[in-house]
C-alpha cells in the first residue's frame, strides 16, 4: 500500500481528516505518484470523500470549499472521487451536488431541477456521444447523425442561455466511440460521419468563445494520452459511457478551472538548469559539455525550452534556481549557442550553493509573489522534497532522468491555466524584466561606487610634460572607444598645441590607485576663441573607463573656462565605428546639443553649473615641470 493511502486511512480511522485538513494538500503533494499516475487519485479521493466540508469550514476559517454540481447524460458518479483528490491537492474541499441520473436537461434547465435552490461555483455537465446517437432510428444514416447533432447543439445552446443554475458551466466535447463509424461499411460514409461529428464538436468548443460563464474542455487531447473512451460492457450494463481513466483526466482539468475560479493562480516557473533545462552538469562538464540541441538527448531539452518559451509568451514569469556558481551560469545564459531561453528571459536568476528553498523564497520576494504562485521544475527528487519542506506552497513538478518527458510533466497539471488571457498578462514578463534590470543596475551602481572608494583612486590633471608627448601621441593613436571625434594627433602637432601659441589648452590626466600607477591615461584639447572655449577632443584609455577620470578632466576644463570668464564651452561628438560608448558623454555633464552646422553633434555648455570632480577621486596637484 502506498504511504499516502495508508496515512489517509489512518487519519480517517482516527477521525482526524477534518481537524488535520490544512495538512492534506502537503501530504498529497509529498506523494508524487499521484501526479505521475503511479497512484490512482481516485483512491485518495475515495478516502477524502469522508470529509464533511462544513465541519472543516467550521474549524478552519481559511479553508475553502467549492460547490460543484455534476450532471450528465449517463453515469457520471465516477468523476467525484478523482475530483475530490484533485481539488484537495490545491487545498480545495469538494462540496458535490449530484444531478438525477440522465436528467441533465431538467437538472440545469428546470426551476424544479436537482440543483434548484443551490449556488454551485461550477456546474459540470458531462455529455457523451449517446446524447446524439441515442436519438437515432435503426438503421441510421450519416444525415440522421447530422440532424441529431444539430438538435443536441441547439439544446445545449439554449441551456447556456436559459439555465436555472448559476456558476461557471463546464462542458466537454463528445468523443466518438469506434463502434459508430465501423457500422458504416463504406469509407466515404465513415469519413463523412467523422466530419459531421467534428463539426458538431467544433461548434460546441466555440460556444465558450464569447461567454464568460461557459468553459468547454476538449477531451480529444486527453484521449490521445490514454483512453479508452469507455468499456463497452460498462457502457452497456451500467451506462458508464466515459471510462474511469478518461473521467480522472477530465477531473484534473475541472480542478484547474476551480483553481482559477478561486484565485489559486500560479504565475512563475522556477527552473533548475543541469539536467532540467540542459543536458549535462555545468560545473563538471563546462559550457562545452552541456547541450540543449545538436544531440538526441540535447534536443529533448530543447523541446522543453521551446515549451517554456511558449508559456513565457503568455505571461508566465521565468526564474532560475541552480546549484552552480553565478558567473558561469550567466555566461551560458548569455552566450551558449544551444539555448533558446536567454538571460533576459528570466525575471530572477539564483545560481549559488544555498539550499533551494532559500532561493525560492528569495525569488518570490524579488517578484513580489507568494510562494503559492511558484512552480518548481527540478530533476532531483531530493531538491523537490527540500523545497516542499522549506518553501511550503511551491508546486513541485516531478521529472526524472528522461528529458523527453520533461515538457509533458510540466504541462500535465495545467499549472498556469487562466480563463482568458489579457494583454496585461502577455506584457507581464517584459515588465518584470525591466524591473530586474533596474534592480541590478542599482545594485551594480552601489557596489561599483564602493569599489571605487575602496580603490583609493587619484588623478592629477595639468599640461603635459615634455617627456610625455610621445606617450600622449600614442594615447591618441590607440584610443578608439573613448575618442570623441576619432582624431589622432602626431607628437609634433601635440607639441605645438602644448606650447599654446593660439590660446590652445592641452590638458592630460595621470592616474593611479592603491594597486599602482597608471601613468598618463587621458587628455583633452581645447582652443580659446572670442570669449568661448572650443573643446576639440577628449581621449581616455580604456583601462580606466568608468573610474570618473573623464568627468574629472571635463570638470577641470569647465571650471577653468568659467574662472577665465568665458561665456561657454563648445564641443563636438563625431561618431566612429567604435566610439558609440562615448555618445552620451557630453550631455551627461550638462552640455546641450546645438544646431550648429558641421559633422556629428555639436554641444554647448553654458557654465552656469559646472560638474564637480567625483567624490571617490583624490585630486593631486601636479608638480611643476621645472621642479622635476
Amino acid at each position, binding site marked *: *500500500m502506498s504511504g499516502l*493511502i495508508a496515512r*489517509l*486511512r489512518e487519519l*480517517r*480511522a482516527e477521525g482526524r481528516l477534518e481537524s488535520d485538513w490544512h495538512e492534506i494538500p502537503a501530504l498529497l503533494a509529498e506523494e508524487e505518484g499521484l501526479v505521475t499516475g503511479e497512484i490512482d487519485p*481516485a*483512491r485518495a479521493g*475515495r*478516502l477524502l470523500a*469522508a470529509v464533511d466540508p462544513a465541519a472543516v469550514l467550521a474549524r478552519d476559517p481559511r479553508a475553502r470549499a467549492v460547490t460543484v454540481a455534476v450532471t450528465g447524460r449517463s*453515469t457520471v*458518479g*465516477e468523476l*467525484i*472521487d478523482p475530483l475530490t483528490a484533485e481539488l484537495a491537492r490545491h487545498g480545495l474541499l469538494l462540496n458535490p451536488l449530484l444531478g438525477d441520473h440522465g436528467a441533465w436537461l431538467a437538472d440545469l434547465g428546470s426551476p424544479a431541477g436537482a440543483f434548484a435552490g443551490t449556488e454551485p461555483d461550477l456546474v459540470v455537465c458531462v455529455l457523451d456521444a449517446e446524447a446524439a446517437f441515442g436519438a437515432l432510428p435503426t438503421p441510421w444514416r450519416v444525415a440522421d447523425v447530422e440532424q441529431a447533432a444539430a438538435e443536441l447543439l441547439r439544446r445545449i445552446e439554449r441551456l447556456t442561455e436559459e439555465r436555472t443554475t448559476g456558476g461557471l458551466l463546464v462542458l466537454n466535447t463528445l468523443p466518438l466511440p469506434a463502434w459508430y463509424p465501423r457500422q458504416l461499411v463504406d469509407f466515404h460514409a465513415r469519413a463523412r460521419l467523422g466530419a459531421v461529428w467534428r463539426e458538431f464538436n467544433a461548434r460546441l468548443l466555440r460556444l465558450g468563445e464569447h461567454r464568460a460563464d461557459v468553459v468547454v474542455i476538449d477531451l480529444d487531447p486527453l484521449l490521445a494520452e490514454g483512453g479508452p473512451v469507455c*468499456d463497452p*460492457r*460498462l457502457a452497456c*450494463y*451500467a451506462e*458508464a459511457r466515459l471510462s*474511469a481513466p478518461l473521467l480522472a483526466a477530465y477531473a484534473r482539468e475541472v480542478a484547474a478551472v476551480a483553481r482559477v475560479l478561486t484565485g489559486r493562480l500560479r504565475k512563475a516557473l522556477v527552473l533548475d538548469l543541469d539536467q532540467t533545462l540542459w543536458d549535462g552538469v555545468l560545473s563538471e562538464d563546462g559550457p562545452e559539455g552541456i547541450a540543449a540541441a545538436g544531440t538526441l538527448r540535447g534536443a529533448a531539452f530543447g523541446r522543453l525550452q521551446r515549451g517554456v518559451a511558449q508559456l513565457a509568451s503568455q505571461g508566465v514569469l521565468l526564474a532560475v534556481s541552480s546549484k552552480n556558481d553565478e558567473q558561469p551560469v550567466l555566461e551560458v545564459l548569455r552566450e551558449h549557442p544551444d539555448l533558446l531561453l536567454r538571460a533576459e528571459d528570466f525575471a530572477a536568476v539564483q545560481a549559488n550553493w544555498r539550499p533551494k528553498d532559500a532561493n525560492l523564497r528569495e525569488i518570490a520576494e524579488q517578484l513580489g509573489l507568494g510562494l503559492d504562485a511558484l512552480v518548481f521544475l527540478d530533476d532531483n527528487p531530493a531538491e523537490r522534497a527540500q523545497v516542499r519542506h522549506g518553501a511550503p506552497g511551491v508546486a513541485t513538478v516531478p521529472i526524472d532522468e528522461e528529458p523527453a518527458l520533461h515538457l509533458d510533466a510540466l504541462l500535465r497539471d495545467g499549472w498556469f491555466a487562466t480563463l482568458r488571457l489579457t494583454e496585461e498578462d502577455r506584457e507581464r514578463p517584459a515588465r518584470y524584466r525591466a524591473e530586474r534590470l533596474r534592480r541590478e543596475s542599482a545594485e551594480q551602481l552601489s557596489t561599483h561606487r564602493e569599489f571605487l572608494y575602496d580603490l583609493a583612486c587619484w588623478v592629477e590633471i595639468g599640461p603635459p610634460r615634455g617627456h610625455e608627448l610621445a606617450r600622449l601621441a600614442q594615447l591618441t593613436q590607440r584610443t578608439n572607444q573613448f575618442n570623441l571625434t576619432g582624431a589622432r594627433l602626431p607628437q609634433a602637432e601635440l607639441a605645438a598645441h602644448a606650447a599654446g601659441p593660439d590660446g590652445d589648452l592641452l590638458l592630460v590626466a595621470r592616474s593611479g590607485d592603491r594597486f599602482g600607477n597608471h601613468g598618463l591615461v587621458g587628455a583633452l584639447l581645447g582652443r580659446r576663441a572670442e570669449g568661448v572655449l572650443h573643446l576639440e577632443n577628449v581621449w581616455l584609455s580604456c583601462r580606466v573607463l568608468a573610474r570618473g577620470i573623464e568627468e574629472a578632466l571635463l570638470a577641470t576644463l569647465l571650471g577653468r573656462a568659467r574662472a577665465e570668464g568665458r561665456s561657454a564651452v563648445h564641443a563636438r561628438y563625431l561618431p566612429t565605428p567604435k566610439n558609440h560608448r562615448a555618445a552620451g558623454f557630453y550631455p551627461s555633464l550638462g552640455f546641450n546639443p546645438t544646431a550648429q552646422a558641421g559633422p556629428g553633434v555639436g554641444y554647448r555648455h553654458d557654465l552656469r553649473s559646472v560638474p564637480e570632480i567625483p567624490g571617490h577621486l583624490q585630486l593631486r596637484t601636479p608638480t611643476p615641470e621645472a621642479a622635476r
Partner: protein
Amino acid sequence: MTSTTHRPVTPAGPPGTAGPAAFLDLAAFLDLVADDLGLDFGPGAATAPLAELPGWDSVHLLRLVVLMERESGRRIPVRRVLEAQSLTEIHLLMEDQA
C-alpha cells in the same frame, strides 16, 4: 461464459486448498477490495448485502470490475459482477473464472 456451479464459500485456508486455481482466497480478496475502495470491513462484510456495507456506493462496483480484471488478468463476467448482491458472490464468480 460457462455457467457457475454454486459451491460453498471457501474460507481462507492453507495454500492449495483455497480454490481450483490462482485467484485470491476470500480473506485476501476482501483485503484487496477494502484497500482499493478505501473501506473498512467489519465482521460479516463478506456476506452482507453490498448496499448495507458502510461507505458503499454503487459506483464502487464499476471500480471493482476494473480491479478484478486487472488482478486476475482475465476477462470477467461484468454483468454478473454488477448484479452480485455480496462480496462473497463476487469472489465466487472470480474463482469460477480462474
